[in-house]
């Protein structure tokens, strides 16, 4: 079974600074997808960024980028120029076939 580990229960950052959230996963498969989702207090789960395992290039979406290290099974999320609206729970997720497996999440608090 696949597992996803987020070792940082909480992180704090000030506006305009950069923060990196960590994620590791365990699988014996070679073709899979990795995701970061954010869940603000409103509860809506919002897709932040996606990475296909077969792609060596790290995905980027505006202020969000990932550092994908396939051999190390590591998938960290970097948020640049943090904004107050980035305050949310961030979940790392792994997809193999039909199943999406989530980590326990990292609560990110952005302060003025």
């Amino acid at each position, binding site marked *: 079974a696949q597992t996803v580990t987020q070792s940082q229960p909480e992180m704090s950052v000030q506006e305009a600074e950069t923060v990196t959230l960590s994620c590791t996963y365990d699988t014996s498969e070679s073709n899979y997808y990795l995701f970061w989702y954010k869940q603000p207090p409103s509860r809506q*789960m919002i897709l932040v960024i*996606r990475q296909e395992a077969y792609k060596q290039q790290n995905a980027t979406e505006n202020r969000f980028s990932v550092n994908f290290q396939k051999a190390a099974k590591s998938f960290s999320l970097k948020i640049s120029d943090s904004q107050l609206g980035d305050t949310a729970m961030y979940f790392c997720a792994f997809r193999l076939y039909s199943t*999406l497996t*989530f980590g326990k999440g990292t609560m990110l608090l952005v302060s003025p």
Partner: protein
Amino acid sequence: DAGVTQSPTHLIKTRGQQVTLRCSPKSGHDTVSWYQQALGQGPQFIFQYYEEEERQRGNFPDRFSGHQFPNYSSELNVNALLLGDSALYLCASSLAGTGTEFFGPGTRLTVL
């Protein structure tokens, strides 16, 4: 372009009762997955429906059942409710083969 919608928003039931939750997928999507998110945890995969069939199932008892209709909308049914079924139930939709799911706002179920 409507996103994923779920109804109802909140629901309160008592132990032993049955509940039905509903989900309409994002326009153009044909696959629906259901997740259970307990307080302070990441979502847990319940099952996925495609072409009106259950395609994959997570580690949930048979009290959890579902259905997908020809218009791709879906229902989640839970029988003989237990206190431990209290959670946020999330529906996610995708287009088969794309690997990326988009989530609805969730239904908060409270079992008393």
